[in-house]
């Protein structure tokens, strides 16, 4: 039996649909209070966990694999394999600010973000001086109130940015769901895991 840790919410909604499309159904998925779902054939068990905790369950080997937003994996740098992305819960990580702004105009830029690791990697690669302000939500407020020059945040439709008078300056990367695996399980449970991987991923594994 392979245990899959699945990030609750946006990711789990999309992934359960994908799994269903591949013939993997969990009878009790309609009961949203249940945290453990069983597949009737007994091959898979789903545990529904907080998105930020998904890599931890996999890293610790409680679950052999997991599916979580790439933003979480990029931010946490967990010791898991990040094998491939799924076409689900797609959005992008962007640099955004007041209309007309550009990163190139700054020699030293002040950025508000929830995603400090990803922001740091991006800004270092751009070779620009920067100061990061960690916020946990409503990041759009920072440039509006003059606390930062810009923000780095997940953008799904762009509606929140537009509603607050901001625009995208630059796309940083696409954010989809990623399939992660415990490093030992990928080797010791390879046969069972490859069956699931082949089912979810069309490429060669």
């Amino acid at each position: 039996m392979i245990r899959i840790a699945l990030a609750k919410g946006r990711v789990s909604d999309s992934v359960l649909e994908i799994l269903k499309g591949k013939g993997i159904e969990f009878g009790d998925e309609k009961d949203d209070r249940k945290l453990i779902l069983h597949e009737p054939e007994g091959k898979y068990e789903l545990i529904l966990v907080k998105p930020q905790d998904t890599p931890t369950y996999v890293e610790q080997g409680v679950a052999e694999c997991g599916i979580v937003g790439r933003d979480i994996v990029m931010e946490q740098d967990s010791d898991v394999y990040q094998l491939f992305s799924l076409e689900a819960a797609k959005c992008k990580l962007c640099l955004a600010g007041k209309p007309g702004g550009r990163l190139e105009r700054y020699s030293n830029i002040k950025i508000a973000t929830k995603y400090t690791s990803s922001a740091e990697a991006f800004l270092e690669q751009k070779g620009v001086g920067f100061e990061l302000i960690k916020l946990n939500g409503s990041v759009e407020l920072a440039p509006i109130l003059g606390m930062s020059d810009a923000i780095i945040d997940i953008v799904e439709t762009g509606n929140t940015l537009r509603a607050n008078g901001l625009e995208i300056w630059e796309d940083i990367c696409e954010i989809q769901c990623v399939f992660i695996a415990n490093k030992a399980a990928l080797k010791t449970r390879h046969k069972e895991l490859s069956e699931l991987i082949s089912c979810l991923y069309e490429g060669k594994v």
Partner: protein
Amino acid sequence: MANFSSSVYSASVAALRRLYYKYSCEEAQVPIFVDAALYERYNALSGERYLKAVDRSGNVLVVRPDATFHVLSKTAGLTEPSRIFYTTELIRYNGSVMQEVTQTGAEFFGDPSALCDCEVVSLAIESLLEMGLTEIRVDIGHSGYINSLLSEDESLDPRAHDVINRHIAKKNSIGLADFFSQTSVKAEVASAAIEICMLFGGYSEVLSRAKQLCLNEGMAASLDNLNEIASLLSKRGHGDGVFLDLGFSNWMDYYSGMIFKAYAHNASREVISGGRYDSLAQKLGNIQHASGFGHDLDITLPIAEHTIRQEAAVKCCAPKGNFEQAALWADELRKAGWPAEALESESAAHLRYKEKYYQSTKEFLADWS
């Protein structure tokens, strides 16, 4: 808090010590402190993960977060081939939490041969078998394979090498593709690097594909070296459990040749990591060649709790007032190599022993009594 009993620790360490001796290894003490500047310059562990101390002269020291590095710092300038082993506690930070890690391992110095690497891997496998672990799988790779691939593109600077190695180490082909899309790396290097992320599995199949991906002699030479080691392992009877993983990357520039990891049933991560680290040994210990491994006892000991044969002390118990008799029995056993305790008791009149014992101890006792 360690998740294993002291008796399983003692039994395992004793069993491993006997095995290491059979491989002609001598036990080394691992120094507690090394100079922090030296450590930070060469060691693979991130600075956030170790504990520092300051001596009376104000020198900053690192408190043993890694054994190999500390052993190297004490064996500098060694000219003759030698083999050492150690068992020690390491101090590491996991985030803000300080942890004590129990590690054992062996280091073979001064021998550049594939046979030496084969001996190192064999010892690693046998040490897991000795602890009663089952379904052992060993994956071997080579740092030269990826290094040689990256040398094909001179535009890749050390920072780019670091990013690429980090992504490959996590089999993160998505991150790698993102990175390549932002750089002007040669297309054949990029596509090979992305494929190498998942280039692991059965020996022949992976080797065959790895050969097709070779862009230069360095990559081919790495595969030849791996093939030689794998063939020797096969001759030693370890061929069935050996797989290839060309995605073991040399992140932080630690390894300079064969890299291997061992996995065991019920272990949540690799239980042994090792490989050849000639460059580090040259820089740090002025030793030309080094190959070895570290074995994470914090993972294997809880498993060995159910598998290792434990030598419980035989209780030699004589009736009250007859302690000499108990002592005589205990001494007989000790001379025969068994741990024994001499006791006297009002209730017990003869020998009794703990529930866990060697079958052979029992047979010996049957003869002896």
